[in-house]
């Protein structure tokens, strides 16, 4: 168990009569980029909410680096080294991009609660400034640090959210549809960025994404959910040729066609 960075077993979440996650078992190893895919409503975001501790599982266990995650309150998850982005944007809309990133560093300030965050941040920030600048610049956002986050285009907000997650210096990031709403070029940039995050910072990535070409291109391994159950796991090549996966996605196409 301890070799895996993140490991879930028997993970189950029921909402009333609906079983959103049903006995799921999977793991993520240090340094991997793992895709978590499945049709709409398969339970992917619910898995993220369970790992972030926003939801209490009905059954099952999750460990992170050997620590029982289910004993950790939501605001301490980041301290263990798990950061995340949201499917529907999780920025602080009225704060500037820079303040959003500063809040991302919140868990790194150890000062008294009334201490000046700006002052405390400054020492750290000097070291991080170049790095932050570079990250913003990678998405062409270098000049937008002072803009309120909600003024940015959707795709840029997604990028800022990822950068904010990285500000906490996590070991694992959970990305919930990071390229949804992005055009092809932005998607390309994001894909390269995610890879660089892994290569340069050694950050492990668990990626939920509907853009299959991106998933197939950057993931080392893929876990497939359908109706809350794990139906397949393997390399991108194995997943692409797995009949159960094809069927799950086809079923969805048929459903959509009927609507």
């Amino acid at each position, binding site marked *: 168990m301890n070799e895996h960075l993140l490991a879930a077993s028997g993970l189950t979440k029921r909402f009333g009569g609906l079983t959103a996650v049903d006995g799921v078992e999977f793991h993520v190893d240090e340094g991997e980029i793992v895709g978590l895919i499945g049709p709409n409503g398969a339970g992917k975001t619910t898995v993220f909410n369970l790992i972030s501790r926003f939801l209490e599982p009905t059954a099952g266990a999750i460990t992170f680096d050997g620590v029982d995650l289910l004993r950790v309150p939501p605001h301490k998850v980041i301290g263990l080294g798990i950061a995340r982005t949201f499917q529907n944007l999780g920025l602080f809309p009225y*704060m500037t991009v820079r303040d959003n990133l500063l*809040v991302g560093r919140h868990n790194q300030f150890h000062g008294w609660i*009334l201490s000046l965050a700006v002052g405390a941040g400054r020492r750290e920030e000097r070291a991080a400034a170049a790095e932050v600048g570079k990250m913003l610049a990678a998405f062409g956002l270098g000049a937008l640090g002072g803009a309120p986050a909600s003024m940015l285009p959707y795709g840029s907000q997604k990028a800022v959210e990822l950068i904010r997650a990285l500000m906490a210096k996590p070991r694992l990031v959970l990305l919930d549809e990071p390229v949804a709403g992005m055009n092809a070029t932005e998607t390309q940039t994001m894909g390269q960025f995610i890879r660089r995050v892994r290569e340069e910072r050694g950050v492990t990535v668990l990626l939920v994404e509907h853009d299959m070409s991106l998933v197939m291109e950057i993931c080392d391994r893929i876990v497939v959910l359908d109706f809350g159950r794990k139906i397949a796991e393997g390399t991108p090549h194995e997943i692409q040729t797995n009949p159960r996966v094809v069927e799950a996605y086809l079923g969805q196409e048929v459903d959509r066609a009927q609507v």
Partner: protein
Amino acid sequence: MLAQLIVSGLAAGSLYGIMALGLILIYKTTHILNFGQGDMAMFSTFIALLLFRTYGVPLSAALGGALVTGILLGVVVDRGLLRWAKNAPVTSLFIATLGIGMILQAIALWMGLIDARPFPYALRGPPLFIGDVVLRQHDLLVFGVALAVSLVFFLVFKFTKVGIAMRATSQNRRAAQLMGINVGRIGTWSWALGLGTGAIAGCLVAPIVFLDLTSMVFVMIKAIAAAVLGGFTSLPGAVVGGLLLGVIENLFSGYMPPAIAPLKTTFVFTLIILVLVFRPHGLLGERSVGGH
């Protein structure tokens, strides 16, 4: 006449503004509208009176005592009471705050805190004359305190760790938690600061009105009105809304014929409804944006 009405209106409006600041701070981070804010402020003010009258504590220390009472009351209300009902819908908690207010009224009665004698002015002395405008010393104090409270709020929110965490919590609770912010503790801080601010408002209002069980209620209603006018989630809006409210109602009662003048409160609330029709988010309100 006009200048005088505006100045007195600003003084009353500052009180509404201070009261509204406390109310909105709590609302922003906990989504609870504290219907007991008036009673809680009244209670802290009674403690100042008790310290001053019964124990002979100097007035400045007694006022400090009210502030401390407000802050502690905030901690007790949040940690001791509301925390236990955290799974209740937030609208039910509104009613709980009303109940806590009633309980505080009962405690004040039971402790014999009600004192018919007027609450002392912290600043006494002859009024100042600027041109033909008369300015009571107490008004000067009110202006000074309103300015100081606004400044403290601004500095806390802009620069301190807890202030930035409060903003984050109010804008996106989940994301704030994810960033390592203990949103429960931030709620406690907001209650403490919010009721501390309420205590300040109480001590400033008390010398003007006779302090009794319900004397803060009308200030509380005006504070809610000020908050609505300002946009409800905006702290600067609360102050601006309070000042506007004070001036408008004073001008109304000053210029209207005696038969209509007492309807100033009715007029003000009618105006607020009009504002909401044309500017649903108030004057300085934050438009709702997705992501919550």
